[in-house]
């Protein structure tokens, strides 16, 4: 499915041609944004990216007491 169809926007041929050219121009302009990698936040430093959602969902379902025991 092409992008206009996905967005449910019907374009005339002329409109499509112009918008495509402008979009390409804008994406080229944005290019590589290229600022250095940001430092991870405290949360990101503790929980690796892929584990974040799983960990938090697990912690909500099985909260732990201070001594590390899981509360059921």
């Amino acid at each position, binding site marked *: 499915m092409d992008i*206009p169809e996905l*967005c449910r926007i019907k*374009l005339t041929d002329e409109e499509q041609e112009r918008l495509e050219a*402008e979009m390409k121009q*804008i994406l080229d302009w944005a290019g590589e944004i290229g*600022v250095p990698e940001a430092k991870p*936040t405290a949360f990101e430093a503790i929980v690796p990216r892929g584990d974040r959602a799983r960990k938090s969902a697990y912690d909500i379902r099985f909260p732990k007491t201070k001594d590390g025991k899981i509360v059921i």
Partner: protein
Amino acid sequence: MTLKDRHGAFISLTDTPGELAVKDNICVQGFMCTASSKLLENYEPPYTATAVQKLQKQGLTVMGKTSCDEFACGSTGTHTSLANPRNPLDEKRVPGGSSSGSAIAVKDGLVRYAIGSDTGGSVRCPATFCQIVGYRPSYGQISRYGLMDMCMSFDTIGTLTRNVDDAIYLITGMSGKDDKDLTTMNSVDVKETPGLAGKRLVAFRQILESCDPGIREKFNEATEKAKLHVDVIDFPEIHKSIPTYYMIVFAEFASAMQRFDGKFFGKNRELLGQEVKRRILLGTFISQKENKDKWYTQAINARKWFQQKFEAMFAKYDFVINPTMPSPAPLVGEITDPITEYSMDLGTIFPSLMMGPSISLPYQGMGIQLTGKRFSDSALLYSARDLEGAL
């Protein structure tokens, strides 16, 4: 000429006099809310935005809804087919956007107070071009409940007034926690604080260099007149703030517009203007799995990097000062390509990335902008009041 037609300020008006004009992307019961779009021409919201409710409780009456760029997408104020906004100072020029009608209504003296939305400069840009005061609060200072999303991680409700005292009055009234907007905070009341004396100011060389020579000259004149000491520092990456901002805006805007799915509104998306269509298409494209890493993920990293950079800078300085806009208001129809229009926002985007408050004061046809760290709204407003007195 009727009041409604005057410089194209209003989309809808009541017959009764009032002191407050509200941008047409903020819901007020009893008024249409079109976001200046034909797509929503007949939409009457069943509720009032929290910010407006608070001002109504303070005794203000809403006089009308003001024109803007369609769905707040634009910096000229003219991207709409529902009104014909023109700069009250020179009708051949644009009023600035996206909160164009709110700025015109205040400049023309039709109302004393106006509110608008500011995502990347939409209050400060028209305030500059129409020569009034525009204030963008910290993100989380004022509830966005009842504001139509343009880019929800940057959107704020801001003020357009003749002077800083009027801005303080509105911001004091609208601030505070709202259970309907989880980003709002409790401890953000605006209180009188010491003003500009002793505050450390910084300007970015690259923003100054991007301005017209005439604007730079007036900026230097203003800082001298107000006897400000400003450290000018290099910040070459600041140019990257524009694509960083716009890539996030496109993605979030395309997502926000999905609510107009044709069930109640949005059947005829052909009615949308070119700028809105372009943003939806671009946002959808860069959000796709195969394209995401090239633009969107990079922009999210860059926003975080900018925030860390500013956090470090605000340990040394209180406020950033710069010309709000790099040039005088363009002529109607002068700007024809989107990149030129986006690039006008260099001075107004960085406060949005860092979520801080920012105010633009009028000075001889240009705007002087002060920006502080997040939730320094009180200090910024009272310092701006001092600066206003010194200019």
